[in-house]
């Protein structure tokens, strides 16, 4: 296996494995936020804002792997 194909495999593996965790985490977060909104619709706005912030934090590992695979591919 030459270095070029190893690069592509590494980038694909990095992005694919890195997307598992954030996917699960954001799913749980969205589900719980929906439950909260359904139970108490008056504070929908507050829950939504906090959900967006929490999702951004959950997403960060996915973004790390994205940046690493971008660096592998184009850096």
């Amino acid at each position, binding site marked *: 296996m030459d270095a070029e194909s190893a690069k592509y495999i590494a980038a694909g593996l990095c992005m694919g494995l890195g997307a598992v965790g954030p996917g699960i985490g954001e799913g749980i977060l969205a589900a719980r936020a929906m439950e909260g909104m359904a139970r108490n619709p008056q504070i929908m706005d507050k829950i939504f804002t906090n959900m967006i912030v929490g999702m951004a934090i959950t997403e960060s590992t996915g973004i*790390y792997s994205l*940046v690493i695979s*971008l660096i592998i591919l184009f850096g």
Partner: protein
Amino acid sequence: MNLPQIHLDPDILFTVGPVPVSNAMLSAFFVSFLLIVLGILVKTRIALIPGRLQMLIEIIVTFYLEKMEMALGSEKEARRLTPFIVTVALIVVISNQLTLIPLLGSITAGDVNLFKTPTAHYSLTIALTVLGLVSVHAIVFLKAPLRHLGNFFKFHLLFKMKSIKELPMVLIEIFLGLMDIIGEIAKLVSLSTRLFGNMFAGEVVVLIISSLLFATQFLFPIPFIVLSILSGFVQAFVFSILLGIFMSGTWNGIKEKAY
């Protein structure tokens, strides 16, 4: 399949002395120019009965003021940090949507685009983050040096022990305090990387989709462009809110503990 030429560093237009001026830097200057014009417009037309523009700015400022008040605890302190946070939010939201201005993306000098999304270049995001986090550390350090350092080096707990049985807990406290130093660096990296990664990925996805086939150049990139517009707004909001939360966390560190 031939991938388009994508690289992380921006194209350099010309050099002023030792400083290379890239297209990302030029667009960042353009964004600051737009912001200054916006500020002058709002400031000169300020009135008791607000117009549309003043209304919009007031909504944004009030929203961030409320958030900072929740994080800091008092309105007086919130009024000192909010201007910086709102400025960062406006810079990021305008730079994320800069390439939406029609024809701006097709101005070229030679074969290099003159304008590019400034936040899709790592320098701007890390500059904003360093500006916020390091300046708040410096302010807090100047206000109460010993108390601020005591948040990280908790060796004074060794002298406060009442019996030797508390030693393991105190050692754990000291270790966690040292770990907080790494946490501060991680905050810096994660905050800047998040914004950069999102904006750069939006560009790359549109580029790759439109260069897959001849037919995919026309209608297929539209959903991805819409997605990247949405993520531009969301990331600007998240970036400013998280910067505010991190800064107020450091700011609150030197206050008297409630217990």
